[in-house]
Structure formats: structure tokens, C-alpha cells
């Protein structure tokens, strides 16, 4: 192991930690005796608790909230815990709902809430049993507290007990603390990764340094699905410090002594691409195809009563079509992967939401058993669903097959945006009939677009319907007697992927906008209209009432300002958001305030819930205002932050988050804040201007 990694791995003082890219304790010859009752934690004979976190940290706070769950039951100080990235292993680190080692779907807390507490409680029980045996007293006479076991005046530290505890059988199931005894769960805790993210110590995939490492700049065929026809590397190879030019059937990499030389080398290549079948793909043409596909009936995703019949008989009938664009993820850390292939197998350093997939696929590419492929996961500089995909790992591994020694492959920002696996475009056709009281008696919603899960997670496709694609289009919280939701699958000729908020992000914006259209047609207040439909959804009603009260719903606003509301039940969490916008005389739209009420059941770290709502809202606002990926001649037009615009400081609204105290099962928090913003803003624009925007992004549609 390098001096660099050894030095950087070692835990630093209270409240801080550093993570390197090896598992040093396993590599160290003089490993201290330790107690590791399960795959999530171990305690060494100095009492140091190390937690192997089964979900990755990409900003969403898992490296604090999951350790909180263990520390709560283990009875140790949170700030003294050292953290370790989990190695690739579905067996040890799978998400219970997905059955795979994936961080996504806003599932981390839901999958960890019982399991991590059990992991901590098992260890605590064994430490108490060990102390009780040493003292010849009953375990019930012993108490665990702050890393020690006490009984009367006797005390043993966890470090002193590891030898005895490690010799005990691991109990299958132990009692958990009652919520009334919780000291950590539900109380705001400082993030364990906050200090190292404020002084440059946190190591992301792109920061990994391996002895002897070279640096590569990469270009893949700009037409998705196209191939590399030819490369003239003469000029590039003449640059001092440029070492190799390596090719795949669809990409080329320049390997050099540093990133700058690699980038210069890449620019110096004369590359001819073969666009292949997608060479004339354009979003303009695809939009026409999508529109045509949306006119044919789809597969029925939900049917309540007889919506077509009720519509045919209705007096007041409303119809609308909503268009949503392709979107890029654009995490701040461009995609990258470092690979070293040697006689002992393959070492891969990267940031991935899917480490076990990365390992399995790399092993297949290399013809190695999976045991000989080691994924050294790192902090992720944003994920948003992009790092669920393993294409950038597979590409690096394919290059590595032709190379000796470690190489870090880094995508440029342009590559990151143009080789994204984008969020698909969708067309939504809706119709509704209102009764004499103005309330909806029939609702139909046909959503047309790609089935991301058919490729990414086929178990989520049932009877031809991508359950994620229709999530929140079906099972609306509103009581409407006749509902028909159908789904038309229409795929672009390239891979599309998961984008923060997944199905709910593209359905809630449509459902909640259209519901606002119905309220307007009924001449009713949008909050009152929703309230009247939420009689059977008390948690949805409660967040709506809280948001409305905190936002001052109904109080006057200046001219050309408006307020809009949304209600959402997604990822096991209930959210209502109220946005305020001001529309300038030239039509420029500015979101000036967002109020967000959340009921996510049991809360582990309230500050993290707030942070995820704030962040989810800003992430959504970028896409809402400007987000679109455009294809012309098979190529993505957008390339960097000047033409794939995102929210900046001066455009970020003040955000107020209000949490509901709840003893319901925990819900997800990473994604729902993103899904709920769109309709609140679109409804606010309508309130301000009377203009209903039914296509995104706003700046292209207004």
C-alpha cells in the first residue's frame, strides 16, 4: 500500500475521519484483534469502532444516518466512529428491497432502519454478555454506555472486551431499544463527512492516486451507438509525455503523464466516427414519433370504475397534453474510473452507486472470477442516478485490457454531458370530466415514453408496464371515482436512465399541473380543491395543510407574482410544496420562495431531511427552468454549463422546510423533494400570468 493511502486512511480526531482507497486493516500485517459480529461493524482492541457503510455517500447523508442507527444501539459516540466504503458484495451489502448492492430509489434508510439497528444491538448484546461472563453477573445487571460496559462500580471498555465477545456465538435476533430511549435517532447530528469536505481531505474517485499511475482523456463516439472508424494519432504521440493511444470499437483514450497532456493529446487526434444507424437521430423528429405513439391506446396501468364512459357522458370535459424533455444528470464530479490490471487481478477505483454490478461486469469483460476484481469505492461527487450506470467503469476496464500499469480515465465535462444516459422524454395526454360541483368524476392519463426499468431493473416491469414509469400516475392520493391510466412504451434508439426522482419526477409535474387546471375550470381555490379530494389520504392532507399555513396561502402577493401548490405521495414520503414566482415584464420568471412540508415517517437525522429537501428543490429547479438535452444529427448539442444551464446562487430561492413528527415507517428523502417542485412552480406561473405551461423547460416554453 502506498504511503499516501496509508496516511490518509487513518481516522483523525473526534468529529472527523478520512477515507483512503484501500482496506488497510486487512492489508496490515499487524492487525489488532478485533470483534466483527457482522459485515457492518468491527471494534478493535483499542475500542475503535469502524463501520462499513452498505450504501454509498453521494451527498444524501447516508454516511451519517446509517452510522447513527448502529451507534444508537451500540451505545457509542457518533463522532468517534471511523467509516469505510463497502467493497462490492451483493451477498453482504444488498438493499433488501432491490436484492442488490445498489444505492438508489431513496431506499437507504428504509432498507437500513431495522437492519443497522439490529447490527448495533447484536454487537452491544455480545459485549454485555462478555462483560457479564467476566464478572460472573447476569447480563441484565450490566449496562452499555459510551463504548463501555458497566455493572455497579466495574467498567470494561469495548476495546477490553473484543477478545471475549469475538468468542461468543452471534445471536440471531436481539431486542431493540424502544423509541423513547433513543438518543441519536430523531436528533439533528453533524455529518461525519462534513469536516473533510471543507478542507480538501475527502477523496473522490477523481482524486485517487495510485503509485505509477498515468492519466487518460477519453472520447467516445458522439453519436450514441456509433463506432470509431479511424484515428490518426501521429501528432498526439509526438507530444512529450503522451504515452499511448488506445482504441475500443466506439471510443479512444490518450494516456499521458498528467491530465493536461492527455487532454492535449486527445485534441491532437484526428478521429473519424461512424455514426451508424443513429447518425440522423434528432429530438425534433423523435418528438413527432413520440406524439404519434401517444395517440394509440397503451397498456392499462390502473383502472378504477369507467373513466371513458364517464367522460363520454360528462358536461364539462378538459383535455391537455404535457411534453417533457430528455435530461442530463451533470454531477459536479465528471465521470471517471481508475483501473490497474495485474497478475493478482484487477483493482478499480471509482465512485459508483452499483459496486457489485461494476465488479460483475468488469470480471466478465476481463474473463476473471469476480473474486479477483476489487472495487475500491470512493466518495461520489454527485450521483443523481448517473452513477447507477456502470458504462464508464466498463469502458475504463476495456481500455485497461490493452494497458500495463494503473491509469485514471477521466471524462471531460463535455463528454459527461454528451455521453450521458439521459432521462427519457415523455408525452402525457390527460382528460378529465367534472361533476356539477366542479369536482373530477373521471380522469384519464396516458403516458408515453421509454421503460428505463426494462433495461436497468427488469423485475420492475410487470405485464409490459414499467412500474417506475407510471409511479404517481397510478395510485394518486385523490379520491376520483373513475380513473384510467395507460402506458405506451416508446423507446429512443439509445439507452436512457434513472434521474433523481425517477417516475414521480415526470409524473407528479403532470398530475399536479392538470389537477390545477381542473381547479381553475371549477373556479375553485387549488388548495381547497385538493383538500376536498384528500379525505382518504390523511398524511397527504396534513402536509398540504402545513404547507398552506406556513406559506400564508391566500394572503396577497404583489402584481405579476403568484403562488402554486403541489401534493405528492412518493417513495413512502408525503410532501406538499408551495412555490412563489415573480414574472418580470419581459416574461422572465424567478422563483422567489419555496415552502416544503414533509412527512417521511420516522426521521433519523432531521437536518439531513431538510438538506435533501433544499437540494432536491434546487436540482429540480435547474431542470425545470432550463434542462433539456437536444439531439441533432445523432449528437447531443449541449456540452457544458453554458448551454446546459443550472441554477446558480443568485437564482436559488429561499427554501423553508417543515417536518411533521411521525412514528410511521421511514420513507425516502433523497428524491421526493425533486419530484414535488415542478408543478408548484408551473401552478405559480399560471397564478401570476394566467398562462399554463405544458412543456418543459420553462425558458423554452414561455
Amino acid at each position, binding site marked *: 500500500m502506498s504511503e499516501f493511502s496509508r496516511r490518509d486512511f487513518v481516522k483523525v480526531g473526534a468529529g472527523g475521519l478520512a477515507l483512503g482507497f484501500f482496506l488497510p486493516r486487512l492489508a496490515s500485517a499487524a492487525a489488532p484483534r478485533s470483534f466483527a459480529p457482522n459485515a457492518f461493524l468491527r471494534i478493535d482492541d483499542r475500542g475503535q469502532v469502524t463501520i462499513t457503510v452498505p450504501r454509498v455517500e453521494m451527498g444524501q447523508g447516508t454516511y451519517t444516518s446509517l452510522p447513527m442507527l448502529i451507534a444508537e444501539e451500540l451505545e457509542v459516540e457518533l463522532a468517534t466512529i471511523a467509516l469505510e466504503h463497502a467493497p462490492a458484495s451483493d451477498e453482504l451489502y444488498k438493499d433488501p428491497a432491490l436484492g442488490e448492492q445498489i444505492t438508489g430509489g431513496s431506499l437507504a434508510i428504509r432498507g437500513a432502519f431495522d437492519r443497522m439497528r439490529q447490527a448495533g444491538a447484536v454487537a452491544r448484546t455480545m459485549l454485555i454478555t462478555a462483560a457479564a461472563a467476566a464478572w460472573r453477573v447476569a447480563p441484565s445487571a450490566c449496562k452499555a454506555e459510551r463504548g463501555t460496559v458497566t455493572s455497579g462500580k466495574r467498567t470494561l471498555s469495548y476495546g477490553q472486551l473484543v477478545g471475549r465477545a469475538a468468542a461468543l456465538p452471534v445471536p440471531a435476533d436481539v431486542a431493540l431499544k424502544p423509541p423513547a430511549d433513543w438518543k441519536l435517532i430523531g436528533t439533528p447530528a453533524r455529518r461525519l463527512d462534513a469536516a473533510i469536505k*471543507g*478542507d*480538501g481531505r*475527502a477523496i473522490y474517485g477523481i482524486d485517487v492516486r495510485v503509485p505509477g499511475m498515468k492519466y487518460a482523456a477519453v472520447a467516445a463516439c458522439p453519436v450514441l451507438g456509433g463506432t470509431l472508424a479511424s484515428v490518426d494519432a501521429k501528432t498526439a504521440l509526438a507530444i512529450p509525455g503522451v504515452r499511448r493511444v488506445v482504441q475500443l470499437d466506439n471510443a479512444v483514450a490518450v494516456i499521458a503523464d498528467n491530465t493536461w497532456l492527455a487532454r492535449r493529446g486527445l485534441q491532437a487526434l484526428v478521429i473519424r466516427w461512424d455514426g451508424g444507424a443513429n447518425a440522423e437521430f434528432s429530438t425534433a423528429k423523435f418528438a413527432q414519433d413520440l406524439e404519434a405513439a401517444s395517440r394509440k391506446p397503451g397498456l392499462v396501468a390502473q383502472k378504477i370504475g369507467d373513466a371513458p364512459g364517464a367522460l363520454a357522458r360528462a358536461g364539462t370535459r378538459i383535455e391537455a397534453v404535457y411534453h417533457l424533455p430528455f435530461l442530463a444528470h451533470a*454531477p459536479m464530479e465528471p465521470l471517471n474510473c481508475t483501473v490497474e490490471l495485474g497478475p493478482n487481478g484487477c483493482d478499480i477505483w471509482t465512485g459508483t452507486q452499483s459496486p457489485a454490478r461494476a465488479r460483475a461486469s468488469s470480471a466478465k469483460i476481463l474473463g476473471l472470477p469476480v473474486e479477483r476484481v476489487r472495487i475500491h469505492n470512493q466518495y461520489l461527487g454527485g450521483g443523481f442516478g448517473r452513477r447507477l450506470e456502470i458504462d464508464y467503469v466498463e469502458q475504463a476496464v476495456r481500455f485497461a485490457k490493452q494497458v500495463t500499469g494503473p491509469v485514471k480515465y477521466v471524462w471531460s465535462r463535455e463528454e459527461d454531458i454528451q455521453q450521458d444516459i439521459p432521462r427519457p422524454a415523455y408525452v402525457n395526454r390527460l382528460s378529465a370530466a367534472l361533476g356539477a360541483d366542479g369536482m373530477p368524476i373521471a380522469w384519464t392519463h396516458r403516458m408515453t415514453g421509454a421503460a428505463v426499468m426494462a433495461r436497468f431493473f427488469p423485475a420492475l416491469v410487470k405485464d409490459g408496464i414499467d412500474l417506475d414509469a407510471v409511479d404517481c400516475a397510478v395510485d394518486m392520493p385523490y379520491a376520483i371515482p373513475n380513473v384510467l391510466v395507460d402506458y405506451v412504451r416508446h423507446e429512443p434508439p439509445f439507452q436512457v436512465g434513472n434521474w433523481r426522482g425517477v417516475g414521480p419526477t415526470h409524473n407528479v409535474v403532470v398530475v399536479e399541473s392538470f389537477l390545477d387546471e381542473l381547479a381553475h375550470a371549477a373556479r375553485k381555490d387549488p388548495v381547497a380543491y385538493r383538500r376536498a379530494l384528500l379525505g382518504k389520504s390523511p398524511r397527504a392532507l396534513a402536509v398540504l395543510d402545513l404547507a398552506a399555513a406556513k406559506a400564508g396561502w391566500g394572503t396577497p402577493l404583489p402584481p405579476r407574482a403568484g403562488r402554486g401548490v403541489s401534493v405528492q405521495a412518493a417513495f413512502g414520503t408525503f410532501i406538499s410544496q408551495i412555490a412563489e414566482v415573480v414574472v418580470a415584464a419581459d416574461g422572465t420568471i424567478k422563483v422567489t420562495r419555496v415552502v416544503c412540508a414533509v412527512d417521511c415517517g420516522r426521521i433519523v437525522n432531521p437536518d439531513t431531511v431538510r438538506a435533501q429537501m433544499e437540494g432536491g428543490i434546487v*436540482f429540480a429547479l435547474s431542470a425545470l427552468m432550463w434542462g433539456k438535452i437536444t439531439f441533432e444529427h445523432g449528437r447531443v448539442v449541449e456540452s*457544458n454549463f453554458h448551454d446546459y444551464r443550472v*441554477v446558480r446562487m443568485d437564482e436559488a430561492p429561499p427554501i423553508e422546510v417543515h417536518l411533521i413528527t411521525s412514528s410511521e415507517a421511514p420513507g425516502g428523502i433523497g428524491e421526493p423533494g425533486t419530484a414535488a417542485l415542478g408543478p408548484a412552480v408551473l401552478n405559480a406561473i399560471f397564478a401570476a400570468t394566467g398562462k399554463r405551461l405544458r412543456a418543459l423547460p420553462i425558458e423554452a416554453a414561455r
Partner: protein
Amino acid sequence: MIKLLINGKARALDVPDDMPLLYALRDILGLTGTKFGCGMALCGACTIHVDGQPVRSCVMPVSAAAGKRLTTIEAVGATPAGKRAQDAWLELQVAQCGYCQSGQIMAAAALLAHTPQPTDEEIDAAMSGNICRCGTYPRIRAAIKRAAGKP
């Protein structure tokens, strides 16, 4: 050889004159706290201080920094404004993924050093070159105010 003064230490680098500082810091000197985000001075992730001024190191050639005083995120805590910013960042729990935060803190430290009591407009002006995809802007604003001693 290009001579640079980085975080108080004299360093001599054998790199091309036109190599942007970012790659010299990260690849040659191992100062990986300064981040690559866009390569076009659009995102601010690579912000460092050159003679106390915030600079996008992804577009500044090393030759242009010769003889100048460079400070990176690894050492900004030694300056009063940098320390105040880092402390406020911790107090308000700003970081999420954290990737942009080196640049954010460098931009904030430069702002606070020159404008100890910035207004909202001055915060906007100083910070709008720094992108955060996690959306930590409300907390960044609050942290700058905290560091400035404002409620």
C-alpha cells in the same frame, strides 16, 4: 522550471508553460482538494487564491502564476477569512456530496477577506460563478452571513 509559491512553500515545477494550474496542483503536487468540474471557468470547482484573489485554476496557465502567492483549500484554513468560512460551513452543515465545496469555500473566503460584511447582492456577485448541483446555495448564503457575524 516554473517557480511557484503554494500554501507558503516554494515549489519548482517542470511542466509546460501553458498547463493550467489545476492540473499542476492535482496531478503534479497531489493537492487534490482543488477540483476539476468543467475546464472552462464555468463552474468554480477549481477556485484557488492567487495573491488573495479568487481565480479559476482550470484556465490559468502555470506561467501566469510564477512568482505569485497561491493558496488552495488545503491551506485556506490558515487565513482568518478561510477559517471563518470553514467553521461556518461546519456549523451550518453546508456540504452534501461536497465536490464543489472547496471552490465554494475559496470563493467565500476571498469575499469575506475583502468584504467582511457582504450584502445579499455582494454574496450573489461573488458566489454565482460557483455551481453546486446538490443545491446547497441557501446554506452557503447562510454560512457566509454566519462567518460575517450576521444573524
